[in-house]
């Protein structure tokens, strides 16, 4: 009897020890955050998953300023924005980078940001938003979401590729177009906005025609481009027209060749601009400002195309030769004001979903 008691008390001791270990573990993790005294030495950047800037560039900034930069990807632009809104009372970072013009109003209207107070050259200012967002969001880069065509396919089939949004509904292009969906993909949303900018209130009827013309809607860009597009990575594609970016064609220059096999239709583009901003309630607003300033300078701007496949907003930044030859931007892209997007997004998506899912 005695021994049984002793055994079970040993068990109890063991359990107590393991509980204590567990608590210590969580306690340690709690202490793992930056102590307050270091807050002014660290800049925490909440960004999207596409963040891909080289370490040595960041190291240069850290050397110059004595600050430490911590990058924290938070999903795509939509997830990033929504996380910022949900945590605005206790922000997850000092600044954000990646909120784009389709989500900007949600961030601004919810009071997520404070004035950035960063002076920028006129070429950067040209991309600023109107209204409250003007001083809160600093433009960093942009990309044009455009319909791309597989020129090789059209040459082989002796057919003329389309040029405009209207062309996509013509019988000549029946069953040839694939696009990621607006509800699950940010280029997909950009394409919906392009059609809204082009057709105004009549856009649902355009989309009905598009669907009647056997357009394929996939969930994401990867699927559309790599599986269904004839010019993409997979060899099983059957559709020579795809929604992608104006910067996609240089990636299709075959080994040993000099020109791409695909091209972007510059009359079908929607321009996505990405912004950086200082979060309201940031622990280190001064450090955040410094980093945003750095992001708008030539060195950072010139590194954008190669690393993140976007165009720099600064006109004096360098752009790779492939890009200036094969990836021109749209001269006159479609645009929808950010506040209009914010006001109508849900309604548009519901209508769109009903048309596309039938």
């Amino acid at each position: 009897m005695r021994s049984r008691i002793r055994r079970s008390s040993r068990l109890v001791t063991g359990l107590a020890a393991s509980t204590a270990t567990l608590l210590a573990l969580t306690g340690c993790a709690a202490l793992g955050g930056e102590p307050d005294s270091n807050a002014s030495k660290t800049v925490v950047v909440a960004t999207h998953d596409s963040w891909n800037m080289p370490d040595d560039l960041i190291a240069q900034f850290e050397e110059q300023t004595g600050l430490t930069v911590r990058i924290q990807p938070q999903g795509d632009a939509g997830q990033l924005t929504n996380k910022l809104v949900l945590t605005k009372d206790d922000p997850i970072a000092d600044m954000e980078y990646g909120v784009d013009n389709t989500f900007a109003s949600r961030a601004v209207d919810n009071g997520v940001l404070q004035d950035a107070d960063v002076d920028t050259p006129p070429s950067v200012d040209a991309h600023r938003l109107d209204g409250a967002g003007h001083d809160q969001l600093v433009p960093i880069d942009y990309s044009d979401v455009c319909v791309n065509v597989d020129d090789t396919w059209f040459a082989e089939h002796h057919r003329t590729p389309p040029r405009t949004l209207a062309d996509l509904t013509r019988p000549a292009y029946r069953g040839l177009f694939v696009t990621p969906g607006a509800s699950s993909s940010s280029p997909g949303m950009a394409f919906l906005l392009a059609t809204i900018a082009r057709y105004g209130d009549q856009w649902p009827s355009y989309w009905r025609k598009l669907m009647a013309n056997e357009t394929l809607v996939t969930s994401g860009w990867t699927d559309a481009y790599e599986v269904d597009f004839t010019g993409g990575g997979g060899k099983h594609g059957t559709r020579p027209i795809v929604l992608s970016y104006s910067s996609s064609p240089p990636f299709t220059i075959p080994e040993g060749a000099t020109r791409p096999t695909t091209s972007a239709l510059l009359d079908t583009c929607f321009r996505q601009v990405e912004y950086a901003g200082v979060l309201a309630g940031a622990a280190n607003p001064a450090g955040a400002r410094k980093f945003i300033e750095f992001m708008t300078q030539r060195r950072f701007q010139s590194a954008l195309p190669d690393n993140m496949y976007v165009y720099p907003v600064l006109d004096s930044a360098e752009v790779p030769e492939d890009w200036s030859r094969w990836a021109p931007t749209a001269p006159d892209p479609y645009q929808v004001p950010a506040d209009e997007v914010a006001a109508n997004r849900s309604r548009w998506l519901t209508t769109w979903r009903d048309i596309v899912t039938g």
Partner: protein
Amino acid sequence: MTTVRVRFATLLLAAVPVAVVGVFFVYPVVGLVARGFWPDGAFAPTEVLDVLGRSRVHRVLWFTLWSAGLATLLAVVLGLPLAFVLHRLRFPGRGFLRALVLVPFVLPTVVVGVAFRQLTAPRGILGGLHLDGSAAAIVAALVFFNVSVVVRTVGAFWEALDPRAEQAAAALGASPRQVFGTVTLPALVPGIVSAASVVFLFCATAFGVVLTMGGLRYANIETEIYLLTTQELDLSGAAALSILQLVVITVLLVVASRVRRDPAPLQRAQSAARPPRLRDLPVLVAAGLVVAFLLLPMASMVLASLQQPVGWGLANYRALATPGDDNALLVPALVGLRNSLAIAVVATALSLGLGAVVAGLVSRRPRTATGRRVAGLFDGLFMLPLGVSAVTLGFGFLITLDHPPIDLRTSPLLIPVAQAMVALPLVVRIVAPVLRSVDPRQREAAASLGAGPLRVLLAVDLPVAWRPLLAAAGFAFAVSLGEFGATSFLARSDNPTLPVVIYRLISHPGALNLGMAMAASCLLAATTAAAILLVERLRIDSVGTF
């Protein structure tokens, strides 16, 4: 005096996993759902109720139920012959095959989605079946991912089954089919129900598969929560759907525990694997077909990984040590693999430790009705993480774990903890059915002979549990290696896991990046298989110690 001690020990034992699940699961989920009910600080339940009335929500619920139900049924039907062949027969290459069968479970859904679609797209090998974008393709992909759960869970159970009852039935003149129908199958029911409930939860909360394969035409509760939370910031809608998810899970768990209740205690023996005989041929053929079904998308993936811009070769594999085409990666894929392995070790240890405790507790048979009810609740609590949306959990982490003493939002420890939450129910489901079928009289006998609780554990439970525990360890390791949903929420850009790296590669244009993503997936598959093989090897070596 002693019973008080034992009861106290039991309570304390139960408190550890309850605290962990409470902090890392219940609290964040409740926090986010509460935001939906209190949108601007004021209680507004009507908005949530309104959402439940939307006809789209009804469609989504119905699709979730039937697609998950059908996929579960198919996974069980396809998994049983394979479980038999891999766990009751002994033949060369069995360990390799066991590992191979587990691989689909860890493959990133994005990659499998692309691999599946390359097969089913109009110009693919299976293009003639017109599966592309259909509900059938979604169900097929769900089955592909989950057959291994059935094989593993039922297999571990089947392996520990004493073959003498079957032999006796056969000796008394029962045909093999009668033996299976009247002896084997009834004995397997608890294991099958365990596996089926886990598979159903996986299918009902499948996300990447439904998005990729369904081409937006189909939506389940999970994809709908994702869209509402991440795109539309409609928290009332997301809360309504999360509650719907919880209701579905609860119903499922109640039904499952009814079916599972009090299986007859089994006599157990050493592993009863035997070489295949001629009369096993139909089962072997069936198992072979299932393996072929599992191999087809994997083969398509391997082919894609060997495809170079010009011709075939290993260029994509060599590129894994580099940052990719036009610096698609910050961190080479090999570093991602190293991160994955380190995290997996911690996550496996956590889930195995907690899982063993939970399995041990839920397999006891309380004498009072209240005791049984409490044990049932306890059991169900640890299944919940499987059935609740990773998006809900991820956003919940953000808004709840942000105050001291638990400010964990940026802690690297959060990744293994989150993965352990996902693996924990699997560990419990693999280990508990086996422990539950131990005759309680064995424990009572041991106790009456003077053995303390720990001694009973070592002398009665462990000899039965070590096989399923090892199986669970392999599974937990695999789960951790392949986990993407929660990890992508928590991983930092400088310490991505391999699935996160693969996702990045596949979402950047460039032929080399797609090839590298495929190569990295093959690497992930190979690593998983190697880990499982290692565990299998440990199992064989340790046979002599018992």
